[in-house]
């Protein structure tokens, strides 16, 4: 079950990198950046998982030495990472809109005024 998660997240990361490198459309590059992010988020949430563990929400009194729960730290990290990823996507999309306004195209072969 967990192995499935790891395979999926590696696939997502590779697909993300492939999209960024190979696709000539700026929108697709933004999608690739998203895929890369989701792959890492899935990896992050998977490493904190323990089969049979409960949600890590306790008050001080409830917490016993034999309580078995999943690792809460990766969940906090994943939330942070998702928020950052959403911000990056939003900024990248707004830049794509501006590029379309200036250049009238989204083709990477034509958006190359800065070179050399």
């Amino acid at each position, binding site marked *: 079950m967990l192995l499935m998660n790891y395979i999926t997240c590696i696939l997502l*990361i590779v697909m993300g*990198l492939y999209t*960024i*490198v*190979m*696709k*000539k459309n*700026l929108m697709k*590059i933004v999608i690739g*950046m998203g895929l*890369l*992010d989701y792959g*890492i988020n899935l*990896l*992050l949430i998977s*490493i904190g998982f323990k089969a049979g563990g409960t949600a890590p929400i306790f008050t001080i009194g409830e917490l016993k030495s034999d309580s078995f729960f999943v*690792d809460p*730290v*990766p969940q906090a*990290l994943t939330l*942070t*990472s998702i928020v*950052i990823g959403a*911000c*990056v996507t939003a*900024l*990248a999309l707004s*830049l*794509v809109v*501006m*590029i379309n306004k*200036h*250049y009238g195209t989204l083709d*990477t*072969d034509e*958006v*190359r*005024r*800065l*070179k*050399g």
Partner: protein
Amino acid sequence: MTQHLPILAIISLFIGAFIVSLIKEKNTTLRNTVVLIVTFASLIFTLMMYKPIIEEGNVLTYWMGNWEPVQNWAIGIGLEVDQLSLFFGLFISLSIVLSAMYSFKYIENETGKDKYYVLFLMMSASVMGFIFTGDLFNMYVMIEIMTFASVALTAFRNNRPEAVEAGFKYIAIGSIGSSLILLATVILYAQFHTLNLAQLAGEMYNNYTVASIFALALMIVGYAVKVFAVPTHFVAPDAYMAAPSSISMLFSGIVNKAAVYGILRIIYVVYQSMNLPTMQFLLIFWGTVTMFVGVTMALAQHDFKRLLAFHSISQIGYVITGIGLTTALGITGGLYHALNHTLFKGLLFLCAGAVFYATGTTDLDKLGGLAKRMPQTAFIFLIGAFSISGIPPFNGFVSKWIIYQATYEAGYAPVTIVALLVSVMTLASFIKVAQSAFFGQLPKEFKNVEEVPLSMRVPMWIMAILCVIGGIVPNIVTKYLVTPAANAVMNASRYVEAMMGKEFASKFYNNLGSAPVIDYKLAGYWQPISWLILFGVLLLAFTLVAVLGGFNPKHFSYADEEDAKYDVFFSGESSEFSHVAGSDLFWGLKYQFRHYFDFMHNIHSGIVNDYALSVVFTAAVILLYVFTFVR
């Protein structure tokens, strides 16, 4: 009070960003005052840490929300400031103040100034947070905020197509770099179940696994993308060129330096793998390639700021080479050069900004003769140009000298030769800039340009004076700033001990708190004062000749034919005059090495896919290298 200083230095800038966003466009004076107060506050808090950390040699630690470690297990986010962090913090907070002062007049006529200052303060705060934190995930968050703010500021002049294009390229490449750093963080957490740098360093001491080596490779590539080391440097010139000059200064002064700090912290403190000769070779090779490619590309540029950007890449190559050496002298040279690079490159970017402010262009083919109209800017530019070229008695000479000696001592003599060659080419390209922007004929349309306002000149003068001071009294600068930082790099056990306690640290390290002695026997075989006198005499002679009319430019009528300039000269002339444009001073060299330059030009294709491919390629090569040799 002392223990709260690290968080105060960070949070004052974040609070400033929040307040500025509330003021908006309504009140310019109030907004500028707030920006000035918070940046100065951050500088003062950082300066106040000087006494406990560098003078008394303590390491400040601060647990956010007072979540202290339980049973040697870090559960909260910790800030930790040692000599290395403070060394970076001092010059970073200084350049933030100077850039803020410069910005007030420089972006006066732009729209969206409130957003500019919010992003400016966010970027500054995230860099301060990055260098003061002691937590791996916090480092990722801060570097991501930094990239985010940098991208938005790159695209600040979004009425210009180049700015938006550069912004998109920067975010696409920058986010791949951040993703690699995050992936490495995740892998390290999965392996060791902690994010605290000190605890990680302890757990990993002589206990490398396959996963941690994988993470090391990803981390190095991730930070190399942020530091713009060569195969991943393609977006740097675009971003530096498109951003306002006050921001370009921060890109080379603080954003780049934060990544250098990241590499130092990860490699020396967390991994302590630098005694491995293979890692040493990797960094030195990488740094040498970076400095060479950067400077040769700079020779071919026609835009002032794009040229400076390639020089920035080249100088970072020196820093990487220096810190890759692992000897005390090498690290001292690398750190000293990082400090100097912030000063002189910031200065040069501010000069480019002053030229842009006065004339509205940074194209070297259009500029000329500005020294007549802007004498102070021209003078300051020459100080910056001499510093970056490593001419005594300016600061660039000192740090480059230390790097030459350190590379030679460590047995990398070819690297020394390349470094010297790169220094010469740096001087050559700055002669080109000086000649085509500040000397020669003044074009008609710039007859009425004026010197920039005082509030823009003051930061430039401060940096220029610091450049000279750094070159005249290198022994004082090394003693009170660089050596403590180099000691902190060489002595990771003190970092672990301060954060996690003696009991935890003594489990891994046998000899706690012993600093290796730095050998300065070779450093400083030169007399800065006599060089200064020589420089003064030469300058006087030059001025005398110029005043007496020795250098009056003659007015030529150029022939149309251009081809003759590439011919081998035997006798006579096929055409009376060959037109060599001011910015094309080294046409002969460029022609002879045209295959190399054509190749480099084709590589800098401007297609974002190619740039992303080079990052992925670098990651693949480094992974292969690390897994083959570092075990």
